[in-house]
């Protein structure tokens, strides 16, 4: 849970084990003060989110380009390993997931955190509100706003790709017609 949440929130696999170590050390130090008012998982999520936010601020300061986690999951060798009838669909799905990750990193910290906790970690509104210390209504607003931004971003990219494909097809057809005219 900790590793996958950190990867999604920071958008990078760099230093994830260091960050996860920091999470568990903070949990250990905070345990004597834990009175059981909330679930231990809520406590752990809160610490994970704080560590991720600190890392995100550090990344912004360092102005590093984030490494796409989709690239690290499967290299070209994996993509070519099992060619089959669904290979094109699989590649398209992988590219879509990569675009989703890129759009996720475009969101604000809070929107990204809410989306990850809700969809990936399957937390309820109440649990997310408790982790982030905000009202449930605010959580809902961030969730819907974040999803809408991502959807609009993805559709805009899709439209751009389709337009580029159409332009390329037109140019190819024009070249073929010129070649056919030249051979007459």
């Amino acid at each position, binding site marked *: 849970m900790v*590793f*996958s949440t950190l*990867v*999604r929130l920071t958008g990078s*696999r760099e230093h*994830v*084990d260091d960050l*996860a*170590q920091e999470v*568990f*050390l903070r949990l*250990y130090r905070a345990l004597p003060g834990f009175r059981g008012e909330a679930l231990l998982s809520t406590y752990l999520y809160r610490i994970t989110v704080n560590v991720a936010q600190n890392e995100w601020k550090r990344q912004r300061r360092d102005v590093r380009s984030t490494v796409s*986690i989709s690239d690290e*999951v499967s290299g070209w060798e994996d993509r070519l390993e099992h060619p089959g009838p669904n290979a094109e669909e699989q590649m398209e799905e992988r590219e*879509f*997931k990569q675009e*989703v990750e890129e759009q*996720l990193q475009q969101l604000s910290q809070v929107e990204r955190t809410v*989306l*990850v906790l809700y*969809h*990936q970690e*399957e937390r309820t509104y109440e649990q997310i509100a408790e982790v982030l210390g905000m009202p449930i209504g605010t959580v809902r607003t961030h969730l819907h706003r974040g*999803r809408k931004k*991502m*959807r609009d971003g*993805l*559709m805009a990219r899709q439209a751009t790709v389709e337009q580029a494909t159409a332009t390329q097809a037109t140019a190819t057809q024009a070249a073929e017609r010129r070649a056919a005219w030249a051979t007459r």
Partner: protein
Amino acid sequence: MGDEMTAEERALVEMDARLVRALEARPAVEIPAGFAARVAGQLPERRSVSLTPTYYGRNVMVACMVVLGVALLGLALDRTGGTTLGVALEWFVCAQFVALAMWLGVWRRGLR
């Protein structure tokens, strides 16, 4: 016009569904071997706890019983203790002695 709106809505719904599926898919992560040991190595050392019982309370109680026993003996041997105050003091010391003896008996039973 109606068909365009329906097609657009369909595209939005499909995009939403795809987006949610992609968000729900967890990134594949590999926890490095020895991670638990690495975290444990960073934890502060715990102070060792002494397991030898000290019985300070019991020893003080026994000492008090001895003192009270000596006082009772002294009061009993004192022939001039026939006054009301003397009798009251005897009963008071006796009651304390008995209370301590009962407490010690309960404490021993609790140890078993």
